[in-house]
């Protein structure tokens, strides 16, 4: 475990990376809403954006694992290339989250284990292992990200945060779609046992979000969402963006896992 930090160099690799991150400099960094916000609001936003920077970093690791798994499974190269490109998107998102955190007053100390960024698949079969990673990452995590970022954007109250979230959300939409792209390609290769297994994977991933639906809350703004706004949108997102698309592909999520996040089977 160690404190999370991000760094960038001015080496040629940074100039290559610059092709992907140029939009960050065009965001309205002189936004007066940040300086004018109450201390308590900025404190909450610092914590949220620090966690976001790490979530994006961990998502880059997840897409790296997916890329490796798709290569091992002999998947079509367009799917593999998409997963590979998404790694870069996530690193760009990590940078913008880090810069937002700095603009808000700095990061909170976040203890992370960089050796344990991605939960490994439970199975050895290359195709099913890739499917497991994609279901957990794209069909659950990224699929929930899109509507939750939309809510966060609507409540941001800051042109800078609004613009940053808008750009991130546009990328995350594609990241979520990788799930459908992959499952539609793999459909003839997945039997009933595989679909049941993937449903359990999705259920476990979904249930892990349950603690988000508890606890006291602050007010909304600067990327932070209050409980009364968050919980109903999250549950609706689970039904619409996770349960329904997987069900259409014959992948049922166990009722017990849905119940943990308050969603009826």
């Amino acid at each position, binding site marked *: 475990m160690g404190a999370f930090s991000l760094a960038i160099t001015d080496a040629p690799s940074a100039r290559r990376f610059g092709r992907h991150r140029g939009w960050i400099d065009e965001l309205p960094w002189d936004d007066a809403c940040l300086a004018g916000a109450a201390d308590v609001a900025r404190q909450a936003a610092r914590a949220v954006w620090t966690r976001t920077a790490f979530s994006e970093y961990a998502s880059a690791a997840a897409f790296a694992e997916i890329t490796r798994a798709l290569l091992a499974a002999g998947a079509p190269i367009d799917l593999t290339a998409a997963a590979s490109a998404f790694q870069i998107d996530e690193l760009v998102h990590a940078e913008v989250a880090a810069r937002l955190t700095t603009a808000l007053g700095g990061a909170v100390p976040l203890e992370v284990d960089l050796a344990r960024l991605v939960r490994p698949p439970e199975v050895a079969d290359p195709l099913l292992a890739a499917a497991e990673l994609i279901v957990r990452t794209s069909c659950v995590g990224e699929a929930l990200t899109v509507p939750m970022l939309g809510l966060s954007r609507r409540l941001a109250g800051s042109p800078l945060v609004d613009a940053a979230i808008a750009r991130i959300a546009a990328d995350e939409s594609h990241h979520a779609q990788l799930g459908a792209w992959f499952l539609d390609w793999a459909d003839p290769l997945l039997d009933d046992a595989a679909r049941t297994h993937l449903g359990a994977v999705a259920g476990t991933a979904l249930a892990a979000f349950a603690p988000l639906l508890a606890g006291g809350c*602050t007010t909304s703004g600067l990327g932070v969402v209050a409980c009364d706004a968050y919980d109903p949108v999250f549950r609706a997102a689970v039904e619409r963006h996770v349960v329904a698309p997987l069900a259409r592909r014959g992948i049922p999520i166990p009722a017990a896992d849905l119940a943990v996040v308050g969603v009826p089977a």
Partner: protein
Amino acid sequence: MITTLLLLCAAPAAALADAPVPPPTPPPDKRASPALLELRRELSRTELAAARTQPRFRPLCDDRGYPLVGNVASKGTQTRPSEYCADVRTRLTPRTVREA
């Protein structure tokens, strides 16, 4: 010469600095926030070995300690992330997917 710029760290004033990062200087007590003063008091009562293992903030994680995928942690809770993790572990029985 390659320069490394720090994009994110827990010392706010140092982030994004072009120059070498100086060690953070704590503010005097009369300018420190009550929360910071409380942290100082807590640390002063804790031996270094224990302080090293004391969690402050941790990412949201699943029942096995892996970070949650996606960017959904926008909720402005007043609970520390480390408490989230503890809550996950107590609410969810660790299991393999095959057992689900």
